[in-house]
């Protein structure tokens, strides 16, 4: 579950104002809106990169508003992956699992098991995004935030990744908030949130 209650924040000249919504446990919601409407800022608030100036943020029933990112159990897949360049693919995926190997199962599910021993510098943009997704899923987060995380994948790979994500979500019951501009990404979503100028304009079920 992700819940924002009257959340506001100011970052430089930009701010979010009085954002409130609830995404139930195990649901997949998409977040859309024009550029600079506050989508990434909202994800950063939920993940703990920035702290709100007002309001509360709940993740899986726990008030995480001022908790450090490492205890929130909130996974994040940035658009550009931010894979650690000094580690190979396997070690990137296993980064958050303290030695427990989850790389084989996850990489098989997303069709990247052949990349496990590759250095990340040799990956394409789409491969990087899938590795970043596996890395975020590896420590079994309660909440997963996707920031245009499939933008470099072609249509076929994108729908395969979304299907695999939906299967994992069914097994593990984590909640997904997915920033995307693509209508096709709403196929597995239960709700849509729309942002504009730092405010939440609309929340509707799909």
């Amino acid at each position, binding site marked *: 579950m992700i819940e924002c209650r009257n959340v506001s924040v100011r970052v430089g000249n930009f701010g979010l104002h009085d954002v409130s919504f609830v995404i139930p446990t195990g649901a997949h919601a998409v977040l859309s809106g024009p550029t600079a409407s506050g989508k990434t800022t909202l994800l950063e608030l939920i993940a703990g990169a920035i702290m709100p100036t007002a309001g509360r943020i709940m993740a899986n029933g726990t008030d995480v508003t001022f908790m*450090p*990112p*490492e205890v*929130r159990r909130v*996974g994040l897949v940035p658009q550009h992956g931010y894979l650690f360049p000094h580690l190979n693919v396997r070690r990137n995926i296993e980064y*958050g699992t303290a030695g427990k190997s989850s790389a084989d199962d996850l990489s098989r599910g997303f069709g990247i098991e052949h990349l496990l021993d590759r250095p990340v510098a040799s990956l394409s943009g789409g491969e990087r995004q899938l590795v970043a997704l596996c890395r*975020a899923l590896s*420590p079994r987060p309660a909440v997963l935030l996707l920031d245009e995380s499939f933008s470099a994948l072609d249509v076929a790979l994108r729908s395969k990744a979304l299907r695999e994500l939906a299967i994992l979500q069914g097994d593990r019951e984590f909640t997904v908030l997915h920033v995307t501009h693509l209508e096709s990404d709403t196929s597995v979503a239960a709700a849509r949130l729309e942002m504009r100028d730092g405010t939440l304009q609309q929340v509707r079920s799909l």
Partner: protein
Amino acid sequence: MLLLFLAVPIILLVVLGGAGIGGALRDHDMIAALETTFVTATIATFLAALCGSPIAYALSRAKFRGRALIAAIVDLPLLIPHPVAGIAILLLVSRDTAFGSTLLDMGLRVVGTPAGIVAAMLFVSAPLYVSAAREAFARVDRRYEFVARTLGDTSWSAFRRVTFPMARRGLASAAIVTWARAVSEFGAVVVLAYNPKVVSVLSYDRFTTGGLRDALPIAATLVVVSIVPLLALRALRYDRSNEAV
């Protein structure tokens, strides 16, 4: 024109003094000076890295009151003449100050000892380390650290597992520049410790006692020694420019 002005005197020095390098390397004073130089420069570099890395990291990442003041303090030794730096350290460690007398009570003499050489080298070269290390840390996008924290790392473990390994080439470059600067230091060292002699002081000593002829082989050896870290630096930079991230 400037390139010629920079290169020709050094080339001339190596060409004219090069023949004497073999003899210089059999000279007991030279061997002792090389040993003293390398050991003290290495200790000074280690101390600069140990104490300078947290400062460089804080300056590259954190916004805090007094940040500009700390940056100015770190840069200060670059702006003052090196003999003046030596005199300043001499004042600090003299038996007339509380700090100096405490050191003497602890049995640590600074003036005229390798400790004095390390202090002088550290004073003049640490700013270079902090400046280069700060750049190395700044090149690591802080979003890598944040992603590591969403994967369960504390800020310290994110630094240890992500930022440090990603900055390590830049930090190694910083250490090499610091070491090379420490090896070539003369002005501050000569004020604090004429003896035991480092190579730069030995070349000056030979110049004042025996003239250019005696100083040349020592000076040429110092130039050749200085080329080693330069080559290491070039190799590191070449590696980095060929490293796709």
